[in-house]
């Protein structure tokens, strides 16, 4: 009996993925044909809370409001236009086959399942690929200025790991343009009264009454006031947890609090160890650095990655002769070369730097060299293709990439894990939904480029508006508990105690200090490469640091006005608990797959070695009262359409 089946038998929570029956290509249509509907006149009787206003949240809130539901939307930003979806550069996939190069829904589905190293749920991925087509239509209608060809039709480019051109883009700011499109649609509904917008308001707890999600407790960041909000359904579109690493390409405020608080209320957290490392970021330059900046992956189309062969090399890059350079990606992966997938090129960079071959003042990067491209294409062509990226690099690193090679190094970028959801994007708590990066469902163990934007919009525009109706239909005219219900009062009280506790802790170190230390541990032991020994060390270091956090934290200021130190304390607290779960999960998954690379499980060539016999499952963790003692539940992954195979990019 495989490990998966053994674990399945021990599940304490029933994990019903609710995948519709029928052939893969018909599942979503058959779901829509059979789902329950809410009469248009009755929709206004339902209230839905949407937390987060990124791509998934804004598109869901706008669409639900258009349908007629009462929507309360919450963002901790000052405006609904700020969410970190905005920073996505590259593009969004859509299986339009506008290039006539043989793309299809099936091919996008296949690429995504394979790219995810066979750890995603097939039915969800297929639906994602189906929706990708509608997303492009919807966003163009919304006025998103995608790149065009001279004939006026939409332009496409190819993107990491795909053999067709299916990526739509708007300069290097695709995420911005898509988010602004969704934000505008959202704002229209705010203007018309369909959405009530709460800005600078952060989720502090999820309230579950009689087994159903009944509302949330939030903290007004401006006044510090705690408030309860009740609704028929709650959507968490609150993003990923990449900031657990402290240094990541995520925005400063990105955090796991919403998902984590839901987890503590019973929602399962799936595959927390699946984190994606992006290979082309600007390396850390000093110890005070607060975040890492990603340089678009498109740079690898023309840049060549290399390190000097001599660890003690001190000459400037252009003076190092060809025979003393190691173009290691071209050497190791001759067919894909510098375009090897994210996880593979990231690990190769790490190995080079670990061997002492790193470049730059801190010897913590590898070169991405455009000298050949400039010689071959001329400076003007390079400038046209990458001008804005080169400018951005110069602004941050203070070096001119036309004259000396860029220095790059991998950094945490995206988290594939998240709240466990079924086919309807509902967590195991009825009425509680998770969308976008906050859920786990579509990317398996590794996300392909240009798929994050697609997933956020698919969830928000084309999945939740249907599935929420299916949940709400039977609840017509059933009253929801008021915010004076004891469960709300208890949650408010708990939050009050928690925040007063931070203020009263009276230690010596700031929340930032702990976040930095926490991030170092997770990056060192649960980052690009993980080992049993390292993870065990992390699991002993983390609780010790967490204890120190509880006793030696200092939060100045008060709880009655804007206090960013206090906000941070609450977020770091949750990151600590999540960090332990990430390490637990990474330790538990004794295989390598996608973004999860265990050094013990690799092929002779150093590639990820999956164990489909024992780990072809989703690890969904249940809160056990103590962050070090979570309970494991599994969902077995079945592959009907795409056959399990080893990824090869040689």
């Amino acid at each position, binding site marked *: 009996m495989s490990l998966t089946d053994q674990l399945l038998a021990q599940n304490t929570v029933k994990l019903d993925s609710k995948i519709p029956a029928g052939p893969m290509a018909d599942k979503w249509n058959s779901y829509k044909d059979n789902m329950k509907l809410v009469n248009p006149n009755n929709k206004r009787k339902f209230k839905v809370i949407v937390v987060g206003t990124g791509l998934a949240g804004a598109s869901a809130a706008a*669409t639900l409001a*258009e349908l007629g539901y009462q929507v309360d939307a919450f963002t901790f930003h*000052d*405006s*609904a236009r*700020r969410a*970190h979806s*905005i*920073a996505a550069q590259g593009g969004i996939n859509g299986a*339009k086959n506008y290039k006539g190069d043989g793309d299809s829904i099936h091919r996008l589905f296949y690429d995504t399942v394979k790219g995810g190293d066979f750890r995603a749920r097939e039915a969800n991925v297929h639906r994602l690929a189906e929706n990708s087509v*509608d997303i*492009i239509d*919807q966003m*163009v*209608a*919304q*006025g998103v*200025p995608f790149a*065009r060809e001279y*004939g*006026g*039709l*939409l332009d496409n480019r190819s993107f990491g790991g795909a053999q067709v051109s299916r990526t739509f883009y*708007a300069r290097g*700011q695709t995420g*911005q*343009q898509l988010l*602004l499109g969704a*934000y*505008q*649609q959202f*704002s*229209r509904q*705010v*203007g018309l009264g369909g959405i009530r917008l709460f800005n600078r308001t952060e989720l502090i707890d999820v309230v579950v009454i009689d087994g159903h999600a009944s509302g949330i407790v939030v903290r007004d960041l401006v006044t510090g006031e705690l408030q309860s909000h009740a609704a028929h359904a709650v959507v968490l579109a609150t993003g990923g947890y990449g900031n657990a690493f402290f240094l990541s*390409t995520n*925005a*400063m*405020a990105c955090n796991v609090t919403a998902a984590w608080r839901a987890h503590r209320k019973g929602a399962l957290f799936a595959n927390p160890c699946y984190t994606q490392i992006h290979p082309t970021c600007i390396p850390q330059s*000093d110890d*005070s*650095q*607060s*975040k890492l*900046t990603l340089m678009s992956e498109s740079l690898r189309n023309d840049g060549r990655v290399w390190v000097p062969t001599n660890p003690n090399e001190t000459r400037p890059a252009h003076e190092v002769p060809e025979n003393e350079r190691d173009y290691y990606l071209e050497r190791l992966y001759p067919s894909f070369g510098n375009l090897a997938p994210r996880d593979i090129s990231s690990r190769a960079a790490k190995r080079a730097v670990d061997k002492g071959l790193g470049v730059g003042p801190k010897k913590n990067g590898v070169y991405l060299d455009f000298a050949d491209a400039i010689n071959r294409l001329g400076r003007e062509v390079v400038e046209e293709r990458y001008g804005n990226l080169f400018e*951005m690099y110069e*602004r*941050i690193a*203070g070096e001119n990439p036309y004259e000396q090679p860029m220095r790059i190094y991998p950094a945490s970028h995206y988290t594939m894990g998240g709240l466990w959801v079924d086919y309807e994007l509902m967590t195991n708590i009825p009425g509680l939904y998770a969308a976008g990066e906050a859920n786990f469902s579509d990317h398996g163990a590794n996300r392909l480029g240009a798929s994050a934007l697609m997933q956020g919009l698919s969830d928000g525009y084309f999945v939740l*508006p249907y599935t929420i109706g299916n949940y709400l239909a039977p609840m017509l005219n059933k009253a929801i508990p008021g915010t004076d219900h004891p469960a709300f009062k208890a949650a408010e009280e708990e939050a009050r105690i928690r925040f007063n506790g931070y203020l009263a802790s009276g230690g*010596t*170190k700031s929340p*930032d*200090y702990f976040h930095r230390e926490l991030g170092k541990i997770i990056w060192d032991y649960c980052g690009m490469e993980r080992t049993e020994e390292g993870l065990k060390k992390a699991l002993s270091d983390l609780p010790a640091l967490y204890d120190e956090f509880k006793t030696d934290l200092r*939060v*100045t*200021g008060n709880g009655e006005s*804007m206090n*960013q*130190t206090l906000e941070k304390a609450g977020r770091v607290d949750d990151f600590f608990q999540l960090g332990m779960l990430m390490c637990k999960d990474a330790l538990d998954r004794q295989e390598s797959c996608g973004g999860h690379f265990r050094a013990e499980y690799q092929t002779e060539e150093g590639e990820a070695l999956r164990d489909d016999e024992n780990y072809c499952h989703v690890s969904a963790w249940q809160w056990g009262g103590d962050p070090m003692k979570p309970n494991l539940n599994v969902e077995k992954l079945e592959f009907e359409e795409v056959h399990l195979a080893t990824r090869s990019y040689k």
Partner: protein
Amino acid sequence: MSHNLKNITLKIWRQDGPQAKGNFETHVIDEITDEASFLEMLDILNDKLVHDGKEAVVFDHDCREGICGTCSLMIDGQAHGPQRGTATCQLHMRQFQDNATITIEPWRASAFPLIKDLMVDRSAFDRVIESGGYITAETGGAPDANLIPIPKPIADAAMDSAECIGCGACVAACPNGAANLFTAAKVAHLNRLPQGQAERYSRVENMVETMDEHFGSCTNHGECEAACPKEISIDVIALMHKDYRKAKFANRKDLARK
């Protein structure tokens, strides 16, 4: 190569709340690497303040890649500081010299009420968008994306103005506290596209009039363009003024038909 800057004096505006009296507070940073970003310098200061039991300086920031538009700050009398086309979060200390005195103030406009210290409320921008800064295309009914070809120059021009990050530097820099560049950037984005034509005139009329309720008026100084981290041209303002003029006549005719 990086080097360390020495003896940086910061004059930072501190104000407990909207109604409180504010004043400049002076802090000295003895040494800092010029690789640090401006906001990382404030992080270091805040860490020190918390360590010393003092309240950290409140300021808005998020993505730190110059795209989310959350950061603000009037630095030495310039919105987003001395580097052109750069948001505060992408400003690095190598733009400054040893022994510099740097003055940091919040953005000041009645439409941007102060929340605390350097943080202001820019919600008035959302009100402008809510009044018309969108194309009505409810989810589900969109035609095929390639149905309407858009000439590349039009798409590129729309993109130029769509780059606006909504940071509010234009209002902060404008001697009149006007939001014409922000509003016009959105008008120019949507009114240039074929998809935006149906609402072209109602959009510009509603947006201009909502803008008017919150902000000052444009007297063509051009400071907004200089402060804009995306370097959006004031040509978009002219475009908005033209469309508003046309809208007043077009919409009047439509009203008469009702």
